């Protein structure tokens, strides 16, 4: 009997292991190969063209005739539009409607294909390598710069002039310029400024209750947290952990060029982008780390912060009163809405770092764009379709919101109201097709707009009005990849304890961190980075 029980136990154990871990291997293998895929892009190009499936029409050389000629639409063209995200349930239905109009207007159809969020980086580059797509979503975080450099997209300047001359005005020349790589334009950004500036979100109701200062500087944050601690000792204050440390808080202090910290502990101020200074080896850094140590000693966060994992939605669940890591207006609006529904007596506010430092800017125009793949057989038609999707009110509404009356309606205030969970707001995952002139605002959008207008005013006063100068920069760390790896390890081991204030002696720990950085070859990284950054600034004229 005993034996039977034991063997049953073992069998179940083995099975659980089998069922659980079966699928992993192929993915890991494939991941390795994905890295090579962009490099292999050039090689496979010829093969790809030989086996290209979509079109039968021969390729007219792009942009050789300068005069805006009438587009030849005698033959039907089927295009593939690749976007990052999940397909809406009613994709086919909406797509059919879109194609009806497109066929009539330019004798073309478009098939939206979706990456889903599983392994999207790999699939994204695979699509470009194997040439199965015509139009494709681009973003700086999907490595637009690198891909453009490697020749994955068609240059669009000539196409714009011949096919869609009006688009230049719609998008704006300065926005287009932000998307240039090596002087060439490879993507058409949407014309909608988006403020993704980071900041903090905090419990305003507690601040009012205990009459505390608005936590918009490190000093005020200290006073705010101390105040809550004194009045309500049981309230947990901050959810600090190994992944979301306190490093971001100093964005309230320095007018840096990015909200996420310049790599390698460099300091580049927004107003003087070509002056690359040092942060990790400066006295400021030592002072800041001492402040964090003080906060940790005051008990603002758990002693075991370093080994903690992030809590799920700590603010909404009352596990923290303030949240730092990666908060932008869009995210803040979500939390606010959640809190409003679940805790009507609470109040949550968002403060952008830039409101204190005066440096604020919308996301770089590269964030949401549409490119034409190098393997596209009909670039003219693709461009025309893109123009229509962006500018034709009827088509744009279909793509962005679905079928009116079935998926959405516009209420008396002109605000979007969803009617069906089969197609949401912007459900084709095409933020690159947002056109602010014909957009139907949603409630969330209006909430965000409150921030945006405020930020746009601050942003207009900066040196580069409403321009994200850092967002278009892509670092290539291959020349110093060894040092890069070593420095990353040093940061994990020596910087993180500093950032959560769990060291005993800050002076000694900082000194040790600096020594280790030197040993790891921080100088090589900094040199390489600086060189690329200055070259980038020169190219775009950021002085």
């Amino acid at each position: 009997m005993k034996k039977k029980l034991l063997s049953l136990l073992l069998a179940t154990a083995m099975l659980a292991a089998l069922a659980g871990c079966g699928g992993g291997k192929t993915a890991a293998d494939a991941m390795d190969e994905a890295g090579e895929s962009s490099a292999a892009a050039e090689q496979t190009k010829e093969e790809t063209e030989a086996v290209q499936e979509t079109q039968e029409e021969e390729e007219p050389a792009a942009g050789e005739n300068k005069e805006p000629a009438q587009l030849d639409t005698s033959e039907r063209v089927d295009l593939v539009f690749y976007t990052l995200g999940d397909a809406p349930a009613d994709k086919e239905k909406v797509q059919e409607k879109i194609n009806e109009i497109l066929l009539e207007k330019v004798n073309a159809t478009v098939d939206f294909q979706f990456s889903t969020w599983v392994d999207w980086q790999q699939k994204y580059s695979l699509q470009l390598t194997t040439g199965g797509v015509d139009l494709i979503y681009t973003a700086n975080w999907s490595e637009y710069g690198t891909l453009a450099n490697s020749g994955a997209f068609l240059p669009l300047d000539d196409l714009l002039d011949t096919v869609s001359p009006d688009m230049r005005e719609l998008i704006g020349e300065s926005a287009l310029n932000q998307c240039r790589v090596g002087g060439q334009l490879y993507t058409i950004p949407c014309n909608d400024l988006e403020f993704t500036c980071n900041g903090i979100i905090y419990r305003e109701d507690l601040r009012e209750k205990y009459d505390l200062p608005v936590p918009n500087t490190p000093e005020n944050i200290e006073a705010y947290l101390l105040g809550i601690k004194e009045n309500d000792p049981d309230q947990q204050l901050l959810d600090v952990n190994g992944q979301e440390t306190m490093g971001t808080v100093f964005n309230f202090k320095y007018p840096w060029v990015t909200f996420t910290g310049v790599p390698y502990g460099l300091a580049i101020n927004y107003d003087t982008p070509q002056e690359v200074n040092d942060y990790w080896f400066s006295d400021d850094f030592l002072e800041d780390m001492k402040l964090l140590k003080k906060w940790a000693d005051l008990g603002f966060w758990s002693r075991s912060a370093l080994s903690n994992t992030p809590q799920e939605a700590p603010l909404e669940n009352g596990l923290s009163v303030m949240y730092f890591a990666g908060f932008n207006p869009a995210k803040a609006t979500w939390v606010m809405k959640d809190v409003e529904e679940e805790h009507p007596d609470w109040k949550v506010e968002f403060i952008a770092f830039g409101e204190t430092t005066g440096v604020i800017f919308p996301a770089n125009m590269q964030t949401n764009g549409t490119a034409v793949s190098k393997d596209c057989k009909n670039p003219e038609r693709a461009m025309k379709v893109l123009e229509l999707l962006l500018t034709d009110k009827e088509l744009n509404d279909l793509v962005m919101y679905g079928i009116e009356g079935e998926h959405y309606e516009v209420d008396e205030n002109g605000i979007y109201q969803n009617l069906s969970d089969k197609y949401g707001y912007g459900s084709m995952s095409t933020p690159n097709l947002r056109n602010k002139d014909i957009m139907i605002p949603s409630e969330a959008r209006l909430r965000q707009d409150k921030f945006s207008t405020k930020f746009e005013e601050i942003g207009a006063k900066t040196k580069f009005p409403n321009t994200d100068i850092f967002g278009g920069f892509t670092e290539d760390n291959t020349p110093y990849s060894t040092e890069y790896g070593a420095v990353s390890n040093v940061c994990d081991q020596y910087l993180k304890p500093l950032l959560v204030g769990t060291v005993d002696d800050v002076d000694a720990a900082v000194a040790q961190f600096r020594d280790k950085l030197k040993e790891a070859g921080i100088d090589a990284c900094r040199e390489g980075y600086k060189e690329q950054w200055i070259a980038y600034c020169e190219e775009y004229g950021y002085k």
Partner: protein
Amino acid sequence: MKIKTSKSMIAFQSIACVLLTFGAVICVLPFGIILSGSLTDDAIIIKEGYSILPKGFTFEAYKTIFKVPGEILQAYKMTIFYTAVGTSLGLMMITMTSYVISRKEFKYRDQVSFLIYFTTLFGGGLIPWYLMYANVLNMKGTTFPIWFPGLMSPFLIILMRTFISESVPDAITESAKLDGAGHLTIFGRIILPVLGPGLATVGLFLALGYWNDWYRSSMFSTSQETWELQFYLYNLLNAAASIKQMAMNADIAMADIPTQSMKLAMAVVVTGPVLLFYPFVQRYFVSGITVGAVKG
């Protein structure tokens, strides 16, 4: 006569029992936590973390999953379809291939075997593989590239071949041949009937492979109708993580993000059938795999 168990033997057995039980518990525990987590109230998971026995017992997570069961049932249907088609076709092809390369009189035996083994060392890699199905065969979006690539694997062919040569001595097939049996008769009436454990092992490997696969859906599915169950699950979890991360950079259409207990409930829903299926094949499994492996 009963062999007297010596003290050292008793000591050895008790130590072995303790160690093995310990090992088994370590393997089972995570699954227990998944099960209990799926039955725990979501708010408690967030505040207090997971526990072995569910606190705040509730079926809420399962209710949410099956409120709109269409999607998950469709994924279930597809996975069962892929598993059934893949396993049956695969078993047939693997067994027949193994039979052929296990025959000594087959003239090109070495060459054919080499071709099969060679693929274990060198493969074309991801891009040619993808190109083949997507552009050459133009099968992207159909179910074909999802079940077809998993049909045969060199490992299973080797396993089966060894199994055949182990369990059927040459003399038997030779005498059958002398009696006038053709290859079909030999294969169908002499080899197949004794292959039970081998078929069960290879079949289980194939079935588990199909059941657990998500990657081919990820590559080749263009609509949710053809998704495998694991991919459906994986995508749901992944979307939550990606959106959380991506929201820092851009505002992206937010899908319904599953709660903690819902994720676990889905894991249970997906693993369930395999749990039920396994005990029936398990008794063949050990013998099948050892016969194939030791002398392979």
